[in-house]
């Protein structure tokens, strides 16, 4: 483990994540035949949010959102310092639970449904990412990111099912269609802004910053599959993000049942299938 990378992440990830989101908005606009906002728009937004009046529905909601950001940054730090993959996943879940609790504490109909949907999404996402970590363990014999990233084995070739599965569930965490059930960056949805409905001002700004941290972390997951060649890995990460944008712009939102069932089916067939094949292949050796 190397804490230096972790600290670098803490400092640089918001900038990187914010730029990614800015780029995302421009590319999305172009896909829709628009010009789109300036590159730095996400930063303007958050800066503005911090200048707004501080208003709450329940005072405790700010506490939960603070915990959400802190643990999101912590998770990323753990990941980029080369920590234990399983612990990274559990810390990620913890951080999302805090967001969900923040939404629950407001006791408001829209944020309540958003919270419930977010939980369904966590339930849909978790098996796939746990399986991905397990698959990487089978190949590298370690759960430590520092070991996995150093492997010379092209993980993506041994774990194609897990990679595709991860691509399938990634929109859940990126909050993109077809899985932007609990909240969405796009205009109007049926539950207003879902889980973030009752957050305003600086609290909402923190949610946005956590999202930047998370975006970088998720792209880190993708990087691992290609880590045998860093240049290729960066290209793969960029292409993956563009692909997710493309999906975002071409799919309508799923209903929760379809989201859950399809994500599980993918995890079961691609994820478990991949692991089972790999298992017997390794045993055969």
């Amino acid at each position, binding site marked *: 483990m190397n804490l230096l990378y972790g600290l670098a992440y803490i400092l640089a990830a918001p900038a990187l994540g914010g730029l990614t989101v800015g780029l995302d908005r421009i590319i999305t606009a172009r896909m829709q035949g628009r010009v789109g906002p300036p590159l730095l728009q996400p930063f303007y937004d958050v800066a503005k949010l911090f200048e707004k*009046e*501080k*208003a*709450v*529905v*329940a*005072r*405790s909601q*700010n*506490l939960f959102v*603070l*915990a959400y950001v*802190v*643990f999101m940054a*912590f998770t990323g730090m*753990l990941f980029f310092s080369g*920590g*234990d993959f*399983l*612990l990274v996943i*559990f*810390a990620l*879940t*913890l951080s999302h*639970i805090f967001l*969900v*609790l923040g939404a*629950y*504490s*407001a*006791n*408001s*109909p*829209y944020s*309540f449904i958003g*919270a*419930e949907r977010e*939980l*369904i999404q*966590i*339930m*849909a*996402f*978790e*098996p796939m990412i*746990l*399986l991905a970590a*397990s698959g990487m*363990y*089978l190949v590298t014999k370690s*759960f430590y990111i520092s070991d996995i990233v150093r492997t010379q084995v092209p993980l993506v070739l041994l774990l194609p099912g897990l990679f595709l599965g991860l691509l399938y569930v990634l929109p859940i965490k990126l909050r993109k269609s077809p899985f932007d059930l609990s909240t969405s960056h796009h205009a109007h949805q049926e539950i*207003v802004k879902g889980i973030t409905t*009752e957050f*305003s001002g600086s609290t909402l700004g923190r949610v946005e910053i956590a999202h930047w941290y998370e975006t970088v972390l998720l792209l880190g997951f993708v990087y691992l599959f290609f880590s045998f060649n860093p240049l290729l890995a960066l290209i793969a990460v960029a292409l993956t993000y563009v692909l997710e944008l493309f999906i975002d712009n071409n799919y309508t939102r799923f209903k929760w049942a379809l989201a*859950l069932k399809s994500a599980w089916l993918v*995890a*079961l067939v691609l*994820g*478990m299938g991949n*692991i089972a094949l790999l298992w017997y292949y390794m045993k055969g050796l």
Partner: protein
Amino acid sequence: MNQLLFLILFPFLAAVFMLLAPNEKARRGAGYVAAFIILAVSVYLLSTNFGEPTGYFDVRPELVDEAILAGEGLMALYIIYKSITFKKYYPLALILTQSAILVYLEINKPNANLPYNLFLDRLSLIMALIIGITGGLTCIYAFGYMRTFHERHKEVKDRTNVFFFVIFAFLSAMFGLVFSNNILWVYFFWEVTTLCSFVLIGYTKSHEAIHNAFSALTMNLLGSLAFALAILYLSTMENPVFGLDQIIFMNKAIVLLPVVLIGFAGLTKSAQMPFSSWLVGAMVAPTPVSALLHSSTMVKAGVYILVRFSPLYEGTASGEMLSLIGGITFLFASGIAVSQSNSKKVLAYSTIANLGLIVACAGVGTYEAVWAAILLIIFHSLAKCLLFLSVGTVEHRIGSRDIEDMTGLITRMPKNAVMMLIGIAGMFLAPFGMLISKWATMKAFIDSNPVLVGMVAFGSGITVFFWSKWMGKLIAVTRMHKVVEDKINTGEWAVLYTLTGLTISMCLVFPVVSHYYIEPYILEIYGKTAQLGQDNITIMLLMLAVVLLIPFSLLYYGKERKHLSPYMGGRTTTLDAKFAGSMGMQRELSLKNYYLEGIFGEHRVMSVGVPLSVLFIAIMFLFSWLQYAGVFT
């Protein structure tokens, strides 16, 4: 040795006193003292055996053997009497068969070489501590609870003397179970726990209670029958072996069949599928009984015996089946918990699920898996005990055990709600206890069986769902509610505070516990041991510190923040969430959780889970029989 005998006999003496005590006051006074002594002695046992290897103790067998035989006879007669009175013929048939086996054993006394009847190794020590602490605390809690219970339920006949007799006897039996090296003794105490749970579940004597008590009895007797058969097998071997310490190190090929039979008994007692229904049915009993059954006694007896024998399951096809039964129980029971709104049922299914995980670990039987299993046992018993007792308290105050009725508990019963939140966090959230164990489980499974990894991966997502939505209900901030936390007696508060403290501090000290108790035990049996990396422990503790610190930020968030009402699509709402509905009616906002019945409905899941687990059990026996018959090794 004196302490072991004391822990077995003292609770029993206390139990007899409970039965004969002249009045409620004397019973309660003596009960508090007795429970406290049990608690203190089990902690003392830990301190005196700090870092010592296994100790063996001889007790004059003839006298004890006769006492045990008499006890077994009495229990059989009681069960026969009850079965006939209530016209329940399955338990009758089962107990008669078992008695026949025991009589046969008594006539053809096997000449087993068994130098020691009692032993104390680190596993028994950990178990004793769990029984002493959670059991003792539950007893203390129960005195206050039962008084309120009878005030609220006038229709139930007050038999508190019988109630506390059985509870203390239960603890006595549990201590006996974990200290016994002689398998005949283990069997006796095993039977006592079955009988105790039967009496406790049927305590209210309502139609439902009696029905559930008998179904618990039937399933557990089925397990006992398997246990008796295992003893019969062991006694017919060329060199009969009755010592647990001997059996563990025997050749798998020879003892696999009896060990699988005992494993089956463990499955019934730890309420694995298809036997899970008895534990769910057991919640008709007063809440302290549930706390006792779920955390310190009964089900822990089941997993104790499985963990005890798990080195023998390692690498066998039967062990693999056992772990699959545990795996599907974990997955399916977690699923059912999603569809339940009755908090005690959610707790019951989550217990079943966690026991499933422990069983899966035991079935895998590698040193890593056993390490994970013991961690699971420790963390689960503390958090689950806390949860049951706080649900019991809340139920008495708000008159409901439905999770939907707990909306905004944080404003109505703030202290209790925080305790529940800590208990729930202890069940599934990083960096609290159960998650550490789940993590250890993943690591243990990945090296042995990919299917189990899949089950844990899916199951853990499901657990996050049902626990979090419960937490959400508790912390929803509703206004204009009265605080109803008064009228909870000091005894109950003391127990709840202690358990909360233990749940948190266990997360802090678990590396120490692991280092001094679990790892040496594993080392003794496997010659190598598992442990968490130093850096990971540091990270865990860091996370815990952050989680515990964050509430203090509430002090920093000044009160000057403007309060807004929730957004209701432009409708004006009052502070207590009332809004103007159509036709000039004022309506109240109410929010209900998702239960996803269509996916996780109880019947739906059980209809898949039960046949599947029956199939696995059949295969498990088939494999062990094939091995016995020498078809494969």
